[in-house]
């Protein structure tokens, strides 16, 4: 119950982590099944329909429900601590964001047991995703599930923007913010601009499917390519929503374990902003073969290549952060150090893809699959592993086991390269992506076998990580405040895990890497910016949970509103939109309750603070 009603950012972070971990596990299992099917030519392990459902759900789950929540978990856990705040700007909204994400994700995955998962690819290109060619409710689960989950992301993004703008501790100017906060700030801004696009797209597709609108139906005056524009004008920035937080994590971990400040901090900030800006300018590079014509192809080619410049700045700044430092190879740093060459490899294939005439060959082949897995797994997932190992003691008060951590790293990264490096060649040799099997004697056989073995090894790496978490959770929570000993930022100044109010007294920030600055000036703790006083806390509430339940019910009701149940009561409830109405009444009723009942929260008194 405590977990359902909590509005504490640290607990919400843990909720995001477990929920994201669960979906990540589901997405990982889907990946393993896909790789087993492709282990040999003309394999019959899965049928074609199931395979298409698996690739669709693997992509959708990993992007929206697997890695994004883990990013949100870290952002929730770390941002308020790094900026010296007691919580996020809107704790109630924070909880609401989590619950809508969770119920959206649950709705999407219900499709496995409720008559067919989405099967039109994670991009859901029309007309394949229309009711005419995708007859099950699969794509409805996709549109409505993602719509609900997307609400949560948008709420979270806005909340982080407000938090970072308004709640920084005294003295923490924008140019003194830790790089992870900067990355999260830019990420949140991208969310704010990109998610409305997918929201609109999903509404239009829902209307086409459920209300028989014709936005994407060419025969009725619509345009099927329109969906691709809407999807990618969201979808490309989404890539940066994923990778920028990883950049932020790497920029925290590497300085800590090199015992040096980040090389070229201001150029890092500038590069991050530039990447975000360019990220919105390049969506059509996913559509070179759609037939946009040479002018558009040339423009989008060049603008895409430009992204290499700020990304290159970041890579070299990380390398030169370690130059002249004292590099320690702890588990988080292993992942961070492994990230640099791996991500660079994903980056350079990105530049190769940007060249439109060459992309006519790369597009929709395994070369592309290899490229974006190098970026998303080799970049983001390695970044998340670095971040999780790095902040685990702060989140849970327990150090993860270093030996198991190193085993996780080696099995995962070797498995990763084994899986995806060979896929570049598969693509160049003519293997298109999203095929459920392939004819023998095309020289695809051996490379696919290698790839599947690699995927298994990555799975082993994940299992070692889970074992590590399990074993660690049985140990006493005795991590020191600054467990890595060279912590540079504010989160390491308070106990692990932090008390529910984070900072007894808001710290005074006197420079970049606030804690490091105090340490080098011979201080053990931060100088407080205020006297000890009563701390205002928000009340726990179940309303965010109820609101999300309501939206979930409304979504299900809307999806099945045209179905024939062969049951008078069910038909009556669904076909007259009564289920939808009940859901909306729950949601809006909760909102009304929230508006009418004025909750002032509560205070922790100074005596109580001193008593601890």
């Amino acid at each position, binding site marked *: 119950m405590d977990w359902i009603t909590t509005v504490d950012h640290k607990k919400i972070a843990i909720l995001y982590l477990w929920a994201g971990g669960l979906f990540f596990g589901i997405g990982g299992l889907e990946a393993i099944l896909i790789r087993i099917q492709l282990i040999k030519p003309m394999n019959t392990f899965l049928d074609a329909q199931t395979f298409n459902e698996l690739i669709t759900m693997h992509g959708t789950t990993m992007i929206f429900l697997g890695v994004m929540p883990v990013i949100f978990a870290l952002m929730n856990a770390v941002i308020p601590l790094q900026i010296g705040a007691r919580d996020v700007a809107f704790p109630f909204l924070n909880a609401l964001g989590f619950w809508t994400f969770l119920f959206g994700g649950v709705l999407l995955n219900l499709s496995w047991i409720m008559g067919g998962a989405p099967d039109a690819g994670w991009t859901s290109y029309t007309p394949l995703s229309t009711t005419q060619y995708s007859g099950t409710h699969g794509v409805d689960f996709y549109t409505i599930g993602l719509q609900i989950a997307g609400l949560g992301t948008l709420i979270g993004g806005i909340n982080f923007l407000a938090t970072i703008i308004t709640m920084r501790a005294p003295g923490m100017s924008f140019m003194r913010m830790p790089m992870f906060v900067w990355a999260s700030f830019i990420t949140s801004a991208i969310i704010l601009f990109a998610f409305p696009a997918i929201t609109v797209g999903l509404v239009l597709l829902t209307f086409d499917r459920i209300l028989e609108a014709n936005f994407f139906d060419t025969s009725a005056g619509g345009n099927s390519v329109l969906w691709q524009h809407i999807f990618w004008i969201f979808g490309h920035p989404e890539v940066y929503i994923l990778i920028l937080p990883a950049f932020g994590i790497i920029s925290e971990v590497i300085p800590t374990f090199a015992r040096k400040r980040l090389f070229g901090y201001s150029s890092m900030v500038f590069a991050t902003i530039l990447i975000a800006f360019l990220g919105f300018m390049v969506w059509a590079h996913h559509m070179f073969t759609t037939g946009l014509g040479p002018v558009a192809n040339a423009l989008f080619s060049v603008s895409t290549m430009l992204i290499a410049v700020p990304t290159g700045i970041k890579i070299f700044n990380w390398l030169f952060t370690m130059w002249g430092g004292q590099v320690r190879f702890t588990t988080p740093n292993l992942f961070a150090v492994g990230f640099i060459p791996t991500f660079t490899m994903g980056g350079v294939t990105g530049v190769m893809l940007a060249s439109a005439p060459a992309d*006519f060959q790369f597009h929709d082949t395994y070369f592309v699959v290899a490229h974006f897995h190098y970026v998303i797994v080799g970049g983001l997932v390695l970044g998340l592993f670095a971040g999780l190992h790095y902040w685990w003691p702060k989140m849970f008060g327990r150090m993860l086991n270093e030996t198991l951590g190193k085993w996780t790293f080696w099995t995962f990264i070797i498995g990763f390269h084994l899986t995806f490096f060979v896929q570049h060649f598969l693509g160049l040799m003519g293997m298109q992506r999203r095929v459920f099997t392939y004819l023998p004697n095309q020289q695809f056989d051996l490379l696919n076998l290698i790839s599947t073995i690699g995927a298994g090894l990555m799975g082993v790496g994940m299992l070692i990580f889970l074992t590590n978490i399990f074993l660690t959770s049985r140990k006493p929570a005795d991590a020191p405040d600054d467990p890595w000993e060279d912590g540079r930022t504010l989160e390491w100044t308070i106990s692990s895990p932090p008390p529910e109010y984070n900072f007894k007294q808001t710290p005074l920030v006197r420079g970049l890497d606030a804690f490091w600055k105090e340490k080098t000036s011979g201080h053990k703790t931060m100088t407080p910016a205020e006297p000890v006083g009563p701390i205002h806390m928000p009340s726990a509430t179940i309303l965010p949970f109820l609101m999300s339940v309501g939206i979930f019910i409304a979504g299900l009701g809307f999806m099945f509103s045209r179905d024939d149940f062969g049951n008078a009561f069910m038909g009556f409830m669904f076909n007259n939109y009564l289920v939808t109405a009940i859901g909306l009444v729950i949601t809006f009723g909760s909102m009304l309750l929230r508006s009418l009942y004025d909750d002032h929260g509560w205070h922790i008194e100074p005596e109580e603070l001193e008593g601890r």
Partner: protein
Amino acid sequence: MMKTWQAGKRLLPMTAALGLILAGCGREDLSVLRPQGPAAESSFDLMKLSITIMIVVLLIVFSIAAYVLVRFRRKPDQREMPEQVEGSFKLEVLWTIIPLILVVVLAVPTVKAVFAAGDDHSNDKNAIKVKVTGHQYWWEFEYTDYGVTTAQDLVIPAGKDIAFELSTKDVLHSFWVPSLSGKMDTNPDGTTNRFSFSAPNEGVYRGKCAELCGPSHGFMEFKVKSVSEAAFEKWVNSMKAPAVLPEDPALAEKFKSQCLTCHAAGDMPDLSSAPNLTGIGSRESVAGILLNDDTGVDGAPVLENLKTWLHDTAGVKPGNKMPDPKKDMGLSDEEIDGIAEFLAGYTLD
């Protein structure tokens, strides 16, 4: 341990690459890395340029990374603080400018090639015009200047530019012959695409559908047959010959009433709802994926393939639109085999 890791990491891709080069980098009739026509060569040239640039970039990054990780390891007795360097304006400008130059080096030929690939041959008198229509899960090729329509095997004269007009009857597909050219999507009416390529060398090339189009997406394959000009003319003429029917009148009646209601053959009307059957016995494959090969190395004889297909259409190509000859059309096993034998013998001279 770090040192061996770094060295291994650098050697692994190189040895893998070397191994693949030795293996020939795929089949000549399929691989992007073994281009057989000017369009594919243009893509391949850009790929070689970009791969070279990128390998240089990777080598620089990997070497700096390896050096840093080995040289600046923390030693057990190190207690003093490393110097806290703010950055270096000069260095940062350097690694902004160098990538910019590299981008320009790649961007200029890219833009050139983009506009070259945009060349439209649809008004070129010397080009052969072909309307390509994608269907779940087969390809229709209409030679507009010759009044000939065929399916699955695109026959073209070697060396001539082929001007394609691409569209789809249902969902999006993407028309791709890796060794001859990059791919182009087939969109619904209103967003019809045009592009062209040529195949200077005679031969058979493997084509694929590259855009997810349903369960049998992976099986939506086709062949491009590049033949001599004389052979092409001969092929066009024999395509226009009157339809051949089975000799047995009962079977001929079945064939007409059951098969030709969707399929076309010879001079029989083309309804475009199913592949044209004219000369199906001479094609490279049945249903695009059952390869016809009398030696049995890469497939089976055409008769065997036709029987496999007609007895189990859903099993061979899941989700395809053809009714099952036995269950849906009420043909007996003997009739199916008879039609298969007839079709196997329906060849063009």
